[in-house]
């Protein structure tokens, strides 16, 4: 009992082939879209690679690029097959290839679903990468004279301005590191000597943040220095002051930025997978309807098309039997060889 049998006359077959050819071209464009999204994602990761740990993984964007290219190739081939399906001579050349092609389409669809899943899950490793990377970036903020790190200050300032964030978890991260370079500290001044003497590592720590943490939407000019000292500024209470500097940490800001991007890409890849399943089913119908003409000599006769020749259960048991037969066949062959060896 075949699965989802549909009767096809010549007109219906022609319409199916034309519709499917159009759908294949949409799928090629969808493949191009997936490829470009992978490329975009890779570029975005590269742009902020200084904020990430060294072992950041570009696996997901690379996979997207590969899947996009593969989709273009498979769909172009499918479109060609559809185009030739209405000509019996050309189609007979494609016939032996169709079954393996359809099996590879099934495998490709599974790969697409896996890619979408990976897109949604990539948030987790990204979180760890960013935590580590931002911690180091904050430490190297002052090293504008060290080769290899001299642009860290500019990168971090521009990132805090663009993403409206301050520090790693929040603005207090700046209180724990020395972000003013020793070149600009007057070591003969009492204040500097006091601060350096006040901690074990001899770092110049202060309750201040860089200017890039300032919120332009604050009604008062930005208070960067002595942020936790209420008496240092007129009419200031740091517990209630919300708008002075950004409250969000840059890790959260970057995770939500990349997370939003990955969710969109994952959803689009799922849609492309659905499209691929539809064209695959369409191609199976074209294949079966062309192969089962009621009158093989007359190309205009009626035919039947189906998705699977037997029901799902029977097809599954068939595949299992075939696999068992293949493995038994190997065992029998080996037994035969051994038998021959012992006899002789």
């Amino acid at each position: 009992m075949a699965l989802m049998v549909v009767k096809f006359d010549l007109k219906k077959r022609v319409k199916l082939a034309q519709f499917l050819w159009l759908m294949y071209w949409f799928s090629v464009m969808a493949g191009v879209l997936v490829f470009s999204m992978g490329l975009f994602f890779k570029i975005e990761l590269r742009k902020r690679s200084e904020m990430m740990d060294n072992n950041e993984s570009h696996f997901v964007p690379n996979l997207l690029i590969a899947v996009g290219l593969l989709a273009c190739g498979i769909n172009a081939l499918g479109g060609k097959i559809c185009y030739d399906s209405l000509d019996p001579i050309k189609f007979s050349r494609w016939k032996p290839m169709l079954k393996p092609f359809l099996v590879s389409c099934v495998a490709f669809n599974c790969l697409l679903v896996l890619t979408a899943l990976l897109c949604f899950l990539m948030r987790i490793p990204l979180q760890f990468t960013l935590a580590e990377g931002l911690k180091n970036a904050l430490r190297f903020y002052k090293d504008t004279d060290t080769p290899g790190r001299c642009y860290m200050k500019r990168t971090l300032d521009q990132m805090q301005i663009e993403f409206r964030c301050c520090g790693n978890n929040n603005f207090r991260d700046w209180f724990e590191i020395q972000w003013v370079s020793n070149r600009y500290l007057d070591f003969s001044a009492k204040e500097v000597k006091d601060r350096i003497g006040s901690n074990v590592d001899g770092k110049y720590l202060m309750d201040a943040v860089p200017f890039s943490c300032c919120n332009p939407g604050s009604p008062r000019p930005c208070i960067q220095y002595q942020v936790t000292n209420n008496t240092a500024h007129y009419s200031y209470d740091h517990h209630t002051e919300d708008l002075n500097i950004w409250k969000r940490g840059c890790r959260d800001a970057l995770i939500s930025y990349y997370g939003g991007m990955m969710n969109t890409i994952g959803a689009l890849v799922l849609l492309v997978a659905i499209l691929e399943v539809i064209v695959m089913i369409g191609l199976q119908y074209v294949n079966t309807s062309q192969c089962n003409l009621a009158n093989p000599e007359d190309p205009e006769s009626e035919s039947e098309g189906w998705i699977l020749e037997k029901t799902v259960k029977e097809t599954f048991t068939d595949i299992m039997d075939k696999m068992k037969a293949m493995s038994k066949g190997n065992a029998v062959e080996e037994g035969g060889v051994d038998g021959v060896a012992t006899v002789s």
Partner: protein
Amino acid sequence: MALLKLQFPLQRRVRLAQSLWLLSWLAVLAGAFTFSLGVYLKTELLRRAEVMDNTEIHVVPNILMLVGLITIGINLFAGRVCQDSLDSARFPPWKPFLLPWYGLAWMVCVWLLSAVVLSYALQGHLEESLKVGLRNGIRFYRDTDVPGRCFQKETIDRLQMELRCCGNTNYRDWFEVQWISNRYLDFTSKEVKDRVRSNVDGRYLMDGVPFSCCNPGSPRPCLQNHLTDNTAHYNYEHQSEELNLYNRGCRQALVDYYMGLMNTIGPGILSVISLQMSVLVSLRYLQTSLDGVDPENPEADSEGYILAKGVKETMMDVKNTMFKLLQFGQVEAGDEAEAGADGEKAATSS
């Protein structure tokens, strides 16, 4: 002597009509392109409308939008005309509309050219408008509690950060304005009282700038206060310090930005003008060649030209026609006056 006469056998006429159809569709796209350029320029000008004093410069995008729509319309018409042109039954109804169409197409080209010229000519006006707008923006920076001006601070801060500029002409503009609101000044402290008394208007002036003037590319953390005092900061000399703040003034930054936009738009508009002119010339040739076709023998050769007589003769003809119209008007008025005078004479005599 006709201007730029060309021979048109049937095959050439057909090809002219086909290429004109294609050209007119390209011109429709060009019209849509012009309209979208106008919309883009207008949104860019509106984005910074708070730091502009007047809207004189808006005439350029307005012209572009209007002319873009007109271009789409006339080229759709041209496409329709040339689709019907090779059918001798359907072409004649279009003929009376062609002369006004030429006038309209010519006006479109003139307007587009004037838009390009205006975009350069109005640069001075733009600069003046920005000067006044920025001066007000800087003066009202501190009024974050005054309704209507409470967003000036955020606008100016974002402008300075995005365009990498500081102040109107340069950062010293901030020294002449009190940019800290009185709400945040402790009037009991000696320093504040000294500063307020040190100038005639009683303003709290200082040699400091807001944080948005800071340059992220500076190797040292930003110095915002006591900028002209070398002793206030370690290892600091304000004459040689270049990277601490942005050196450019916001007026110059905005003018450069908008002039860059106009320079990019200019060549696009010039190519739209040339496309429209080619549609105009092609349609004129098509019309004159079809007019010259002998109705008995529709497949014969014909001649096409741009003007039936030379340029000078055509101008004389136009002048004479207009003269006649005026004279006709005058003669009619003269007749009426005579008839009126006769009537009066008759009335007085009777």
